[in-house]
Every structure is written in C-alpha cells, then in structure tokens.
C-alpha cells in the first residue's frame, strides 16, 4: 500500500513538472518541485487554472484553493497522491 502511494505521488509530481515546464517554457529538469508557486511568477488566476487542469487529468473536481493550501509541486503531489492513491492515472 505504502509503495502504491509513493508511486502515485511520483506520477502526480511528474505530471505537474511537465505542466509547469511547458507553461513557463523551461526545461523540465530545471523545475524545482520545492519552490513555492509564487516564486515561479504565478498568481491566483494561474493556480486556479492549473488546479482545474490537474482536476481534469484526475477526472475529479479539486478545491480552487488547493495550490494556496499546498504551495509547491512537492506539497500538492504528496497531498493529491495520498488522497487519490491508485486512482491517479498512470
């Protein structure tokens, strides 16, 4: 079970790294998962849209304040990976 959650967290993190890298046009290896979203220049309009797209990928509706309450890729992916477990798409 623990192993599955770690895998889910990794998949969410990879999806978010790829999303943010494409959005800001920066190489994915340069995306720092511990950096706060506002350090990347994002505002609430951006994190709301980012959250909405993450929700589409997970086929669910996420709280609009997800990325305020969990303010980095690492924080969001830990939370979402644990909450959704094996429901996270491969």
């Amino acid at each position, binding site marked *: 079970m623990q192993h599955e959650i770690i895998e889910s967290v990794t998949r969410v993190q990879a999806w978010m790294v790829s999303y943010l890298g494409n959005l800001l046009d920066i190489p994915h290896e340069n995306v720092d998962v511990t950096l706060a979203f506002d350090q990347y220049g994002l505002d609430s309009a951006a994190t*709301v849209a980012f959250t909405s797209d993450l929700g589409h990928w997970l086929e669910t509706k996420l709280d609009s304040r997800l990325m305020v309450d969990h303010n980095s890729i690492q924080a969001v992916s830990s939370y979402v990976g644990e909450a959704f477990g094996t429901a996270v798409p491969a």
Partner: protein
Amino acid sequence: MSETRDFDPMELGPEQTDHGAVPVGITVDQGRLRGPQKVHAIAIAILPAIGTVAALWIAFTQGVSTLDLALCAVFYSITMLGISVGFHRQFSHRSFKTTTPIRVALAIAGSMAAQGSVVYWISNHRRHHQYTDKAGDIHSPYMDEEREMGIIEGFWHSHMGWTFDHSMTNALMYAKDLYRDPAIARVNQLYYVWVFGGMIVPAVIGGLATLSWWGAFTAFLWGGMVRMFLCYHFTNGIDSVTHIFGTRPFKSGDHSTNNAVWALPTMGEGWHNNHHTFPSSAVFGLTWWQLDPGAWLLYGLKSVGLVWDIQRPSEKMISDKQKVES
C-alpha cells in the same frame, strides 16, 4: 530586450463554431476566488464614485486648487496611457516593441487604474477579440454568455454589469506569454501595491506641497478617486459606447464603432472600429484628424530609440478593407 511575436495573441482559445454556445475551456471555475473578485468589482465601481461626489462638493463649497486639478490630469494621463499603450497595445496585442523598463512602467501605470491585474485584463481582452459580440465575449453589449440582450441591459452589462459575477477567463490559455516574462509576472503579482500606490502618491504630493493633512486629503480625492472614476468610465465606455454608438467605416465583422467624442479622453481608443479591423496595429487613428495620443507617445519614444517596430496598416491594406465595405 523585447518579446518575440511567436504566436497570434488573438487566436488562443478554440474556434467559435456558431453564435450559440460559449466555447469549452475558455473559462475556469474560480471557486472561492469569486468572493474577492466581487468585492474588487464593487469597490472600483462605488468607492471612486463616492470620492468624486465628495471632491465636487468640496470644490463647490470651498473651491479647488490648481494643484489638485493638475494632479488629477497628470495621474489620469499616466493611468490611461498605461491602459491604452501598455495593457492594450503592448501586452494584449504586441503591436510594438520596447525595452523591459518601459514595459514595466507601462504595466505599473495600467495597474493604477484598478481594472484588475495585467494578466486578468489581457486574458479578458484577448478573449473579447476572439469572440467579439458573440457567445464567449466577456463584455459585449449584445451577448451575455449564450443570451442575447436588449439595448439598455446590453449597455449596462458591457459597461459594468459583467464585472460583478463573470466566470474567470482561463489565464493559462490566454496569457501564458506574460507568465513567461519574469518582470511582468512580478508586476502582476504586486497588483495591489500599484493600486494603492496610485492613491498614496498624489496624497503625499498634495500633503507636502501644502504642508497640511487637508491638502493631502483633497489631493487623494482628485489624484486618486476622481482620476480612477474617470479612468473606469472612459475605459468601460470602450466596451459599451464604442460597440453601440458611432460610425463603422470598416466591416470588422462585429459592432465596434469609431467615436470621435470618446477618442481623446481614452488616448485614441475611441477609434475602435479601426482597432477591431486592424487589431495588430499600434496606431488607432488612421487619418491625420483621428486624434490618437497613445500613438503620439509611441512615436515620441521611437524618436529617442526606446520604441521600435510600431505596427501600422499600409494605405493599401486600409483601402482594401474599405473596398470590402463598398
């Protein structure tokens, strides 16, 4: 130095297939942001209006100083040039190139209007161009989402009504380029600093010039409140007035008009039918008598080398469009 034009700012969302439905994905549910958005919309609609009534009452009972009128005029011009030349011609349409310090200055000046942050404003404006006066246009006098409106309701909706309860434009669909621009993304994040700064700076000038709290207060009223009231209604009139009243020399495929009355106080924005016909043009006044202060600023900056690649339609492009009309 400047952004390269690697996309067409007007073709970001999905195509409009018919007049009936709002295209999918152009908005996001802002959830709990809806509350703060409504508070902002009500505040900018009401507070400067109250401040303007107070300023006029004081002016009629006790007079008004030349300094206060000058602060109003100067801060009005700075803010409206920020909206027209910055938010509109530079950031929405990329219609000229300039240096980063000037882009930052324009973004700050436009933010002082309190019409939303640069990303919010540009997202809405690009969406307006893509779906002008059809379903999907956020502030058309003719369509509210998928519902047609009569003239009075339409005027209200396009002028102010839309601001109070609209679904949020998908900023990541419409304004990715601004997030990729670190200096502008930072100005965007500091939006409220510029809004309050635009009210505090005139008050400080008035207070220091008169060495009195009363002088600071009346300067705040004229340089802050009256200025924002005028900016709000003249800018919103571009969405309402110049989509209803005026002439349509070009067939732009929408209801946009040229309106000489609206042109000067909006820094040239009143030539709105010209703009919707040639959206990538940095110049809105296409004849010598179509006054366009925004374009004068651009040519002034160009003469000292701070602005370049000013887009403008050729005479042939203009006459070709007029032929389509006749």
